[in-house]
């Protein structure tokens, strides 16, 4: 039974993950998916959109700052997730802000007097049009390479995430943890941007074996597992084993 104090949950679409976080992400929150290269951040975020559309009839917006839509569609098809079909059915919008776009001008300079109001307008335009419930920005880290003014970006990220979630969407941000780094990303503020942080690992446990795992580092307003759980990338996408504690981390 719901009351004024209960938190409405959004199913993650990742088998096993909801069991670790009281049934799903809190509706309208910003969740950070952090991990080193190759840990499965983009797959998890894309699966959140795909399963949201297919199983829960929740339209989504995928903002890609790194990979081209063609590459994303090809990668997700490996898991039987047809993103092209979702687009045709009006359940998914892919916002292509990847550097590979032909019309994008070559940046030759930047002055520390800009904002991300354009990004907000572009995303909210799709959210409104699609009546989207789920938004993914993949990946925040690319902004560190695109722009030098980190202080501006930090401030702008706070505004951007607040305005997207205010529209009623649950927002997933992916963040790449650089190798040899103990933080959660390149900006040092990633954890503060989000009310939830999920960290993915792919650790070497022997000369010939790596072990994938997932940790719910924080999730405001939720009792969540404090252990590191086994995770696998299967033919159907990411799956978490809630009862299995990872041997690797």
């Amino acid at each position, binding site marked *: 039974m719901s009351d004024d104090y209960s938190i409405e949950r959004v199913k993650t679409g990742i088998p096993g993950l909801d069991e670790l976080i009281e049934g799903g992400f809190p509706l309208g929150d910003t969740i950070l998916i952090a991990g080193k290269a190759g840990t499965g951040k983009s797959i998890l975020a894309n699966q959140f959109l795909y399963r949201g559309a297919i199983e829960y009839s929740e339209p989504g917006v995928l903002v890609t700052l790194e990979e081209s839509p063609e590459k994303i569609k090809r990668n997700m098809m490996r898991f039987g997730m047809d993103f092209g079909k979702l687009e045709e059915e009006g359940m998914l919008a892919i916002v292509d802000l990847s550097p590979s776009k032909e019309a994008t001008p070559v940046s030759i300079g930047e002055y520390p*007097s800009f*904002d991300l109001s354009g990004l907000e*307008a572009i995303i909210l335009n799709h959210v409104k049009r699609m009546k989207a419930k789920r938004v993914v920005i993949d990946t925040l880290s690319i902004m560190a390479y695109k*722009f030098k003014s980190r202080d501006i970006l930090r401030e702008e990220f706070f505004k951007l995430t607040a305005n997207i979630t205010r529209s009623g969407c649950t927002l997933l941000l992916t963040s790449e943890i650089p190798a040899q780094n103990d933080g959660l990303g390149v900006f040092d503020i990633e954890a503060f941007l989000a009310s939830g942080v999920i960290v993915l690992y792919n650790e070497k446990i022997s000369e010939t074996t790596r072990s994938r795992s997932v940790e719910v580092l924080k999730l405001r307003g939720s009792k969540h597992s404090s252990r590191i759980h086994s995770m696998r990338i299967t033919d159907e996408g990411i799956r978490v084993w809630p009862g299995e504690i990872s041997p690797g981390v």
Partner: protein
Amino acid sequence: MSNNDSIEANDEDTRIEIVFFKSDTCAFCPRAEEVLLETIGDFEENTFRLETINVSKNPEKGEEYGVFALPTIMIGGVSVTGIPEPGMIFKMILGAKARQRRGAK
């Protein structure tokens, strides 16, 4: 090739294309626009073809160009973000003219 295509090819627009991207909420955009207009005002009339895109009103255009940090000024395929120094705009114009000349040869 259609008749229209051949007419366009013969009557090629040699003006330098400038696109100014702004938004309704961008605090830096009015000053950037002033700097741009003052700088290009020193050139002969009809040197430029200036288009202003308000991304708040026309987000599809911002998306099409992949421009989301504002203000951004694009001159002949290269861009600068933030309030630029006039010298930077001048350099971009000279670069666009040089590219145009190379393309004409």
